[in-house]
C-alpha cells in the first residue's frame, strides 16, 4: 500500500492591493513560441489598457533564449525568460512551480494561459498552489474598472449560456483561454525590447519520469487552419456515408471535420471535432451535413465567415445558424454539388490541395 500523503500547508495568498499587471504564460515547445499563446496578447492588451498596466510574457524552457524577442513583435511590454537545462522536459507540476514562483515575485493581478492540452493540465495546479481561483476555457473578457475585477467569460452548460465569472477577493485572477477565439495581433518585427533573464528560479527535480515521447505524424491540414471545412454529423448514418463528405471536401479543396456524434460513432477522429468539446474553427466556408446543430456544435463555428447546411429535417436547429440552407437528402445533394463543381471546373484554393479522399478517416 502507498504511504499517506504529506499535505501542503494552506497556501499563502497574495493581497489584492499589491497585485498589478497582466501576465501571460507563453508555451515554448519544439523550438517555437506557440501561436495560441501569443493570441492571448489581443485580450491582454485590451484589459491592460483599461487597467493602466503592462502586459508581461513569461516563457520558460531549455535553450529558448532566441525566441524571447518574438512576443515584443506582437505587442508585449515585457518579456521574462527562464532558460534552464532542467526545464528541457515538461512536467505539469515542475513547470507549474516555475510559474508559481514568477507570480509570487511579479505579483500580477491577472494570469492568462492558453487552453492547449498542456495549459489546461498545468494552470489549475498553479492556481491551487497560489490559493486562488481559475476559470477554464474563456472566450471573452471584460473589466470592472472600479474594482479592477476582470470578468472571465466562458460557455458552460452546453454553450447555451455565457457565464461572466469574477474573482473578487483573490489574486491573481487566473484563466485559461480557448485557442483560436482571439486573433493573433499584427506582427511588427521592428518592435524590440529588453528581455529580463530570470536566474533566481529553483526548478525542482520531477517526481515522475517521461519514458518516451513520440511525434504523431500528421500531414493533413488541421481543421483550425483550414479555409474550407465540410463537416458531417449523426445524419450521415455510416462510415460509408462519410466518404461523400470526404469527396465534397476534396472537390472544394477543403478538409473534413465532424460533430461530436460523428466522432463518437468513429467516423472521424476526435482532433477533427468541431464544437465546445472539440475545436473552435474559423474557415471562410463551413458546410454542415447531417448535423442537427446543437448549441455545443454551433459554438465552435461562430467565427466561420459563411455557413452552409444540408439537412433532411426542416426543423433542424442548424438552419438557424447557417447562411445557405439546403433541405434534402445529403446522398442526393452532395453528389449534385460535386458534379456541379467538376462541370464548372471551379478553382480550388491553392493552399488546400493536400487531402485526397480517405486520408482523414480513422483507419
Amino acid at each position: 500500500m502507498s504511504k499517506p500523503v504529506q499535505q501542503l500547508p494552506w497556501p499563502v495568498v497574495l493581497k489584492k492591493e499589491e497585485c498589478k499587471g497582466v501576465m501571460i504564460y507563453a508555451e515554448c515547445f519544439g523550438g517555437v513560441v506557440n501561436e495560441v499563446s501569443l493570441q492571448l496578447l489581443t485580450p491582454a492588451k485590451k484589459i491592460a489598457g483599461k487597467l493602466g498596466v503592462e502586459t508581461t510574457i513569461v516563457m520558460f524552457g531549455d535553450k529558448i533564449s532566441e525566441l524571447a524577442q518574438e512576443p515584443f513583435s506582437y505587442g508585449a511590454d515585457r518579456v521574462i525568460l527562464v532558460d534552464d537545462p532542467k526545464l528541457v522536459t515538461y512536467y505539469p507540476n515542475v513547470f507549474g512551480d516555475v510559474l508559481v514562483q514568477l507570480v509570487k515575485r511579479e505579483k500580477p493581478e491577472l494570469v492568462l494561459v492558453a487552453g492547449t492540452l498542456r495549459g489546461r493540465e498545468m494552470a489549475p495546479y498553479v492556481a491551487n498552489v497560489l490559493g486562488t481561483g481559475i476559470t477554464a476555457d474563456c472566450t471573452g473578457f471584460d473589466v470592472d474598472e472600479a474594482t479592477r475585477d476582470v470578468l472571465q467569460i466562458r460557455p458552460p452548460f452546453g454553450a447555451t449560456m455565457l457565464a461572466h465569472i469574477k474573482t473578487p477577493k483573490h489574486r491573481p485572477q487566473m484563466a485559461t483561454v480557448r485557442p483560436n477565439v482571439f486573433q493573433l495581433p499584427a506582427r511588427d518585427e521592428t518592435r524590440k525590447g529588453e528581455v529580463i533573464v530570470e536566474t533566481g528560479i529553483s526548478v525542482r527535480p520531477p517526481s515522475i519520469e517521461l519514458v518516451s515521447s513520440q511525434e504523431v505524424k500528421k500531414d493533413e491540414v488541421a481543421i483550425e487552419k483550414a479555409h474550407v471545412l465540410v463537416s458531417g454529423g449523426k445524419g450521415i448514418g455510416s462510415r460509408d456515408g462519410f466518404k461523400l463528405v470526404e469527396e465534397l471536401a476534396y472537390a472544394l479543396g477543403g478538409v473534413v471535420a465532424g460533430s461530436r456524434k460523428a466522432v463518437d460513432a468513429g467516423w472521424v477522429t476526435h482532433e477533427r471535432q468541431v464544437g465546445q468539446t472539440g475545436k473552435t474553427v474559423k474557415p471562410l466556408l463551413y458546410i454542415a451535413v447531417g448535423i442537427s446543430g446543437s448549441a455545443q456544435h454551433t459554438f465552435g463555428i461562430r467565427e466561420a465567415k459563411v455557413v452552409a447546411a444540408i439537412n433532411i429535417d426542416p426543423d433542424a436547429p442548424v438552419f438557424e445558424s447557417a447562411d445557405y440552407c439546403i433541405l434534402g437528402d445529403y446522398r442526393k445533394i452532395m453528389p449534385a454539388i460535386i458534379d456541379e463543381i467538376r462541370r464548372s471546373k471551379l478553382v480550388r484554393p491553392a493552399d488546400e490541395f493536400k487531402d485526397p479522399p480517405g486520408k482523414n478517416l480513422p483507419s
Partner: protein
Amino acid sequence: MPINIIVGVKWVPNTTVVNVDSTTGTLIREGVPSIINPHDLNGVEFALRLKEKYGGAVTAVAMSPPAARSGLEFLIGMGVDRGVLITDRAFAAADTFATSYVLAKAVEMLFPVDLLIFGQETIDSSTSHIGAQVSSWLNIPYVYYVTDAQVMEDNHRLRVERSLERQTEIYDLPMPCTTVVSMKSNTPRPVTMQNKFRAKLQKPIEIWTNEVLKLDTSRTGLRGSPTVVSRSVPTPSVPRKKLMFDGREKPTEAAKWLLDSLSKEGIA
C-alpha cells in the same frame, strides 16, 4: 499487486436546456434529470480494468446533492466496490477550488490509496480542473489525457500512456498518483443484473456529510470559492442569412444555387 483506486465522479444535469438562478448565477438543478457525467464513466471503466488485472478495490466518490445516490448505485452495477456520496448544504455552489478541497479531504479519509482517477471534463461545466487541483492539495503527481496504464510491480510505479495534440507520451509515476483519463480511451461497460442486485441488496452507498468530514465551512461551498458567477447570459447568436432552398426534389438546382451563392460571396 492489488491496488486501491478512487474514482471521482460528478452527478450532472442531462440536458442542454439549463436554468440559471439569476441572483446567484448558479445552476438550478430542480426538475432537470441528472446522470453520472459520461466522461467519468471512462474513468470508472479504466479503474475496473486495472482492478481486474491487478486485484484491489475501486471506490467511487461523488460530491453532489443527495439524488446522486442512484448514480453511485449505477456504478456499483458496473462493478465498483464502494460508493461514497459527499453531500452537505455547506458544500453547495462551490467552484472547482472549494470542490477540490473537500474531495481531497475525503480522499485523505479513504487512505491508503494508490491511484486517483478522474474523467477528462464534465458535460455541464467542462473545466478539467479537478484532477490537477485535488493532486495539488494532496501533493501527489498527476498526468492528464491518459489512454492506458499498467502497474510496474517491482517498484510500485504506474506506467501510463497519454496523447497530446501532436505527441503520444509514456510516463512513469510513483504511486499514489492521479491520472485524468482521456474522453475517448475506452467504452464503459454496461450494468450487469448481478451487480445491480448487489447494489440493491447491500445498499453500500455511504453518505458523508460535514459531520463526517468536519471541515471549516469558510473553506467549502460558495464561501470557500474564490470565483463567483456574476451573471449568466444566453449566448448571443451570430447573425446569419438563413436562406433556404428546398432541394428534396431538385438536388441539381440546389447544388447550383449553393455554388452561385458562394461565388457571389467570393468563396469557391
